[in-house]
């Protein structure tokens, strides 16, 4: 019971039996269908449409084009709004755009009586374009004379930031000593897509009183309300967002994708219900992807293995629209800085560059999987240069207990990183395997590799952290729990239930969490992202529970004629604090409180927690692989993630969370990559050609935890949502390096790339 128990998910039965309702399950049968018309060029202008044939299709209600939408620019990222103009998100898109900035840009939409009519009409729309050369990669977009995607951003540079620590001048630090070894390399990560099971889906209607209601699959209902209001120029209170169960988001649904357009189309159809179901192919091409980032790095190390200085120059491919923009590469630079101590200092220059390709946004890890690939590939390359065991090198140079970020002030309050490294070393027989896999010959070779990481918990102090919770005591002594924080498959409802049980002294079966968020009813929270909810929203919950508990005990004190401070709640009963003797059941208390003729009171509590703290979680991945040289295939023999995520609220769910993240990391490391042709058109934007690993490609996923209580957290807990996906790809890369001696410097490590590298190294 309570925190630390392996409680069964509160939504397990509904989900396993198929009774849990998702957005598509709730659609009214007579809803109209909307179909987005996407551009078939990557860069240019829409000059005009020929709608004649499309309008003839039976069942077409209305066709709306980029010439019909309000002249309002808006931004889509799921950030808390900033009241300071300088910190507000970049607002760079309209509902439909005449300026085409990527293949698959939204340029028109069809509303029809059914899907077939909508699709037929969409296919018949003729578009006249003025085409510009595509600039899908950073190099293309930064070339002199490249077309400018957004007028106000000359040179297509959305943002540039610079950060230094210590001397902050690599060349100076590296030049001060003789005998330093220098590493100078370029590493690159690729575009990948979230591939959440449930596609982006929503429906919108006006209720009888003119309120615009949108039911949608989102991680961030309250932010969706604000962005729809901004995009349509409507008062935010006129809009109501309902979020039912969702089938995954992984950050793609931490962006306001098609809700504003859906709302607009509903109004264009006179308030009738309009549904939008985005296809898998559209999701690849036209929603969000993970930023591809190219990094030029340098490191200077002493022969004894001391890291002296590092330099990072990172170029992040933003795609056509800003979305989360520069936050991702800025986050990357921070982690590059935090994970290792540079004796003399480090410097980092980060650029975010608009290109004519899929807009990059939030995706599990928010720049840190990229950062970790670069940082940890680099770490193994340094260790190799030093002829030093890469694990020992890490122990010598990695971030220390109590580390405090010199820029953000974020502090490592509960340090488990070294313990994670040692635990993995032992479980994986690291030292023996490193010896065993030395000097191999033959077609099949084995290796063992590792990567460490750190990750902050929530977004403070970069952004606002605020959360609310409401608790109501029911007539039967059970609790109604409402969180603004969202269940997106990660198990939030279950851990909140456990937290409430823990803090109220109730059993979980007496806590009824309302899973659905409805912005007309649900207290405010910014939503599921940044691995923040157990920490930030958990604090709101704990605070609210304490308030409610006080009120309950106050009423009990009145009923029992005993001082409130002598009472406590355990197992749904008011007990004597000292002896633990039962004095009053919660059911009796609640019934009396509701229906008392002398003193009727509804026992409720609601509070907001403004979180002004943060802490690091950390961990390591260890991978043992077998490489088939001629086939270019990497078989994972054993893989282990060790996490330092504080006290686990629910160890079973925590383990499942790690499994999912590791699976994502395997795809990132070995196969997934969204590719583009020379015209800027995606080549493999579908689940056949985009190679996500299947169950048959997935090895056993081993998970270990190091539980160090975090003093700043509500229950000793810290970030775990995103971290599992972070260290897997670099650990695999370093294992391949150990097996073959070949350093692969870009992701993914697909077979063709590997065979080319093995040929170059004369292994085949």
């Amino acid at each position: 019971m309570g925190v630390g128990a392996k409680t069964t998910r509160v939504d397990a039965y509904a989900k396993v039996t198929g009774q849990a309702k998702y957005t598509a399950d709730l659609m009214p049968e007579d809803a109209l269908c909307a179909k987005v018309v996407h551009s078939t060029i990557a860069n240019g202008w829409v000059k005009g449409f020929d709608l004649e044939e499309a309008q003839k299709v039976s069942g077409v209600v209305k066709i709306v084009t980029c010439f019909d939408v309000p002249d309002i620019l808006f931004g889509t990222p799921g950030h808390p709004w900033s009241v300071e103009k300088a910190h507000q998100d970049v607002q760079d898109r309209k509902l439909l755009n005449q300026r085409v900035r990527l293949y698959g840009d939204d340029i028109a939409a069809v509303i029809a009586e059914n899907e077939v009519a909508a699709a037929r009409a969409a296919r018949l729309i003729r578009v006249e374009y003025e085409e510009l050369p595509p600039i899908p990669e950073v190099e293309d977009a930064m070339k002199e004379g490249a077309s400018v995607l957004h007028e106000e951003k000359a040179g297509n540079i959305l943002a540039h930031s610079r950060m230094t620590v210590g001397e902050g001048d690599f060349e100076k630090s590296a030049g001060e000593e003789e005998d330093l070894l220098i590493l100078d390399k370029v590493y690159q990560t690729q575009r990948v897509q979230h591939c959440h099971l449930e596609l982006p889906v929503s429906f919108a209607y006006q209720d009888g009183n003119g309120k615009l209601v949108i039911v949608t699959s989102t991680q961030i209902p309250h932010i969706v309300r604000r962005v729809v209001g901004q995009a349509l120029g409507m008062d935010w209170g006129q809009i109501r967002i309902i979020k039912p169960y969702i089938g995954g988001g992984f950050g793609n649904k931490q962006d306001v994708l098609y809700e504003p357009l859906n709302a607009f189309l509903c109004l264009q159809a006179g308030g009738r219900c309009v549904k939008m179901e985005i296809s898998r192919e559209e999701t690849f091409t036209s929603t969000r992807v993970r930023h591809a980032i190219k990094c030029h790095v340098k490191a200077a190390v002493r022969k004894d293995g001391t890291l002296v200085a590092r330099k990072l120059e990172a170029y992040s491919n933003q795609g056509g629209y800003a979305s989360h923009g520069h936050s991702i590469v800025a986050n990357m630079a921070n982690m590059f800085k935090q994970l290792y101590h540079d004796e003399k200092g480090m410097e980092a220059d980060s650029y975010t560059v608009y290109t004519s390709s899929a807009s990059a946004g939030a995706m599990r890890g928010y720049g840190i999987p990229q950062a970790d690939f670069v940082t940890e590939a680099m770490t193994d390359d340094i260790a190799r240069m030093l002829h030093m065991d890469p694990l020992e090198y890490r122990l010598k140079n990695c971030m220390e207990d109590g580390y405090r970020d010199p820029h953000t002030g974020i502090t490592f309050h509960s340090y488990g990183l070294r313990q994670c490294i040692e635990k993995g070393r032992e479980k994986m027989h690291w030292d023996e395997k490193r010896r065993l896999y030395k000097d191999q010959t033959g077609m099949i070779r084995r290796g063992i590799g590792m990567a460490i990481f750190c990750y902050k918990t929530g977004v403070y102090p970069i952004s606002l952290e605020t959360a609310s919770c409401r608790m109501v005591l029911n007539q039967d002594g059970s609790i109604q729990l409402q969180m603004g924080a969202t269940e997106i498959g990660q198990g939030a409802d279950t851990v909140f239930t456990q937290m409430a049980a823990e803090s109220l002294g109730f059993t979980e079966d007496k806590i009824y969490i309302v899973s659905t968020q409805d912005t007309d009813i649900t207290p405010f929270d910014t939503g599921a992202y940044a691995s923040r909810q157990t920490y930030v929203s958990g604090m709101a919950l704990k605070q609210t529970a304490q308030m409610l508990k006080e009120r309950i005990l106050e009423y009990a004190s009145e009923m029992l004629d005993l001082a409130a401070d002598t009472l406590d709640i355990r197992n749904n009963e008011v007990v004597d604090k000292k002896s633990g003797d039962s004095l009053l059941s919660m059911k009796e208390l609640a019934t009396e409180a509701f229906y008392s003729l002398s003193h009727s009171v509804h026992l409720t509590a609601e509070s907001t927690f403004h979180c002004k703290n943060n802490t690091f979680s950390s961990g390591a991945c260890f991978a043992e692989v077998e490489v088939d040289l001629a086939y270019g295939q990497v078989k994972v023999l054993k893989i282990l993630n060790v996490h330092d995520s504080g006290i686990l609220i629910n160890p079973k769910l925590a383990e499942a969370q790690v499994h999912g993240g590791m699976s994502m990391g395997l795809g990132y490391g070995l196969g997934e990559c969204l590719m583009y042709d020379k015209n800027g058109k995606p080549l493999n934007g579908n689940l056949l050609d985009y190679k996500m690993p299947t169950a048959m490609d997935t090895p056993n996923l081993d998970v270990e935890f190091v539980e160090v209580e975090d003093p700043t957290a509500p229950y000793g807990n810290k970030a775990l949502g995103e971290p599992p996906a972070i260290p897997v790809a670099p650990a695999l890369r370093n294992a391949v390096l150990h097996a073959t001696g070949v350093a692969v410097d870009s992701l993914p490590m697909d077979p063709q790339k590997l065979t080319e590298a093995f040929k170059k190294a004369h292994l085949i």
Partner: protein
Amino acid sequence: MYDIETLYQAKDVGDAVEALKKNPNAVLISGGTDVLIQIREGKLAGASLVSLHNIKELKGIRMEEDQTIWIGPASSFSSIANDPIILDKIPVLAEAVDTVGGPQIRNMGTIGGNVCNGVTSADSASTQFVLNARLELTGPSGIRQVPISEFYTGPGRTVRSHDEVLTGIRIAREDYEGYFGCYVKYGKRKAMEIATLGCAVLVKVTEDKKRIEDLRIAFGVAAPTPIRCYKTEEGAKGMEIGNDLLCFVAENVQSEVNPRSSWRASKEFRLLLIQEMAKRGLAEALGRAGADVTGLKYWENWQNGGEIDA
């Protein structure tokens, strides 16, 4: 919702041929695992379909009087993979069709659709090439038999005319008796995959199991259509089983195939795979034929100083 203009459910083969004759734009559908995808993608949106679904005479597997194996073209991949005659006489075909997509696709997709679709990547096609499968086409003017080597005319194209239905696939006794085979599929993942390359090998060894009596080797995705390597096969006849044989085959198939570069795989990578798969497929087939392949299968075990890790 699929954009299908009309769907005609044929009662039998004659009825299907008639329906195709009447509508020159009609599209035949059997399992639907290719056609429905093309409808969804828009390529065949608004199509009029003639369905072969549940036509009994197109299903099943049986042994004919002269020991020819007859395979109903509307047999699903999973029914073929589990059929006792196939498993007993031509297990290589079961092995090949069991690599198609995933379980759902294998339950719906049919072997006839696999070849009539005309693509080089069809997992059953290269195996049918080495088995010298004969395809029976039934049209308005009667029945004709086409060896599979003459069936494909280009990528996505076959000799089947619009109003013909594939009504049987036959494999003669002399094409399977005494032969042992292997199908190697190379994909970027282990399931839900289209072959980057497919390689089917069929061998017959001499009585002492020391030499090749007959070798047949075919590839998918090594050319615009599935392709047999007849010259290499001829050259390998009589060769002693050993590493030289594997190298000879790997070396010689390269001059018979014609892979192209695409974003899925470069020509160089495909050629590397062709050599490697030829070796591995051949050694595996030889092992199944009872030949001594000790030391030939260098890709099977990781070794370090002779110490094999279990």
